[in-house]
């Protein structure tokens, strides 16, 4: 499937860099998590960050959407320097993400979770909501329509009104993806979207990720430590090891890269 996808002309051709990471370094109380990392992410591409556990992949993601603040280096989004922004600001800029261990709102239904993902598009204040004034109602319906589109897109109609807490792991991952794309982000950060999934679930997830990239033209940065999956869905791959960048390029280039082979493929998985 993926082969076919790349064979066809893309609806959204890959453009110039949208995220530029320059010499980013950061440490947790002395422990170096990232050292002098530099790479860029181009518009509409699927960019993978891979590396063994503890390579600093998640930290890198957390730096990009402002959960962590790097000690050194600069981070650019669409040309503008945004080093050390707050997560909220990142969200407003159009950076959306999922988490390694699912961070859904357990007590809420699938529908509400995804609706919550669109909060940036709802401006009615609590009084308007309480008295159901026109704007509140309008926003509620408009966003519900958008959300229903996503629900259909991810094929989760049947669990629309189920509290996410009751869903199996694989579905929860899917819902979280839904919540992330509900914000209609420019860039979507996926932290190990396929972690702990069986092969069918992984294939589904791959399909959805590609569909998102293909259907909405969303730029995607995803982390995986299982190489296999990543290689065939991503356009370019960054390889980290012990917080250092040891490889960067197309899947094939990376496969050929000796450092990567030593540091990564050597590691049994």
């Amino acid at each position: 499937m993926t082969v076919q996808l790349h064979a066809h002309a893309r609806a959204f051709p890959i453009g110039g860099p949208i995220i530029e990471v320059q010499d980013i370094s950061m440490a947790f109380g002395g422990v170096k998590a990232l050292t002098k990392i530099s790479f860029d992410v181009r518009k509409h591409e699927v960019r993978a960050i891979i590396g063994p556990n503890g390579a600093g992949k998640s930290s890198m993601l957390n730096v990009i959407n402002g959960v962590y603040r790097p000690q050194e280096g600069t981070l650019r989004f669409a040309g503008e320097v945004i080093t050390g922004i707050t997560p909220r600001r990142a969200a407003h800029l159009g950076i959306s993400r999922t988490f390694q261990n699912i961070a859904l709102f357990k007590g809420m239904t699938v529908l509400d979770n995804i609706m919550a993902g669109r909060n940036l598009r709802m401006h009615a204040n609590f009084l308007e909501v309480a008295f159901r004034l026109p704007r509140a109602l309008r926003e509620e319906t408009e966003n519900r329509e958008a959300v229903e589109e996503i629900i259909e897109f991810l094929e989760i109609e049947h669990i629309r009104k189920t509290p996410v807490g009751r869903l199996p792991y694989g579905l929860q991952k899917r819902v979280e993806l839904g919540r992330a794309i509900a914000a209609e982000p420019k860039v979507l950060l996926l932290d190990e979207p396929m972690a702990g999934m069986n092969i069918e679930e992984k294939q589904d997830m791959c399909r959805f990720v590609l569909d998102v990239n293909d259907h909405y033209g969303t730029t995607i940065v995803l982390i995986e430590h299982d190489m296999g999956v990543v290689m065939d869905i991503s356009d370019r791959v960054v390889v980290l090891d012990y917080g250092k960048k040891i490889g960067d390029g197309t899947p094939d280039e990376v496969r050929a890269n000796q450092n990567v082979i030593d540091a990564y493929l050597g590691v049994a998985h």
Partner: protein
Amino acid sequence: MAGFQFFLEVLVGGLLSGVMYALVALGFVLIYKASGVFNFAQGAMVFFAALSFVGFMELGAPFWLALPITIGLMALLGLGIERFVLRPLVNQHEITLLMATIGLTFVIEGVAQLVWGVEVRRLDLGIKDQPLPWLADNAGLFISQIDIFAAVVAAILVATLSLVFSRTKVGRALRAVADDHAAALSIGIPLKRIWALVWAISGVVALVAGMLWGARSGVQFALVFVALKALPVLIIGGFTSVPGVIVAGLIVGAAEKLAEVYIGPSVGGGIESWFPYVLAILFLLVRPEGLFGEKIIRRV
């Protein structure tokens, strides 16, 4: 000079009542460390312990008999709570656990009333609530003997506990549990038994605290609210640090007394009731993890 002496008196008095807070808080810390539960019922346990002790003595049991009986009783109570309230709620949100212990408070109070009645009781440990002559003569400080006694007992208790924890096998196991439940389990530490033990110990600690308080100001419901006072103490000291709560106890005790005496009059007095909390909040805003608590890093 007299002003300063008065100040000292207030200070020391405060510190000493602080010891009481610390003593109660100690029970909290033990349980919080071991099972991550904030045992709101600790105060009620203190009250219940003291009341039972007095009760047994009134029934004619001599001190040396009433003491072990009560100890046993408190240990049982602790075990019971662990088994029937907290084990079913294991892995629940801390707020849920707190609510459960609030419920527990009511139950214990109720039982205490039912068994021992409601009227205030005197508890006589044979130590007079009079200024220590020696201090009064030499330093001109008027400080109650019982306060001193309490401080000493508290000191001994803390010392023994810390010994137990650092030297004995159980103690090490307990520390392991406190650090990391999963790890502790994986190296074969019987979590449940540890919890039970801790609850029993905290029951005993409660008894000591209860007796001292009772001896000082009579055994009555007010004791239950000592628990609330212990809350700010814990926050300042950090939920998981024994030395922390000792220090914090002293700070709170001293601070509230001084505030009462020096600031109180200007605002109509009685500020003891809320001062510790406000103190705690202010403290929180500066140092959320408490005096000796580990810094909380929230990973994503």
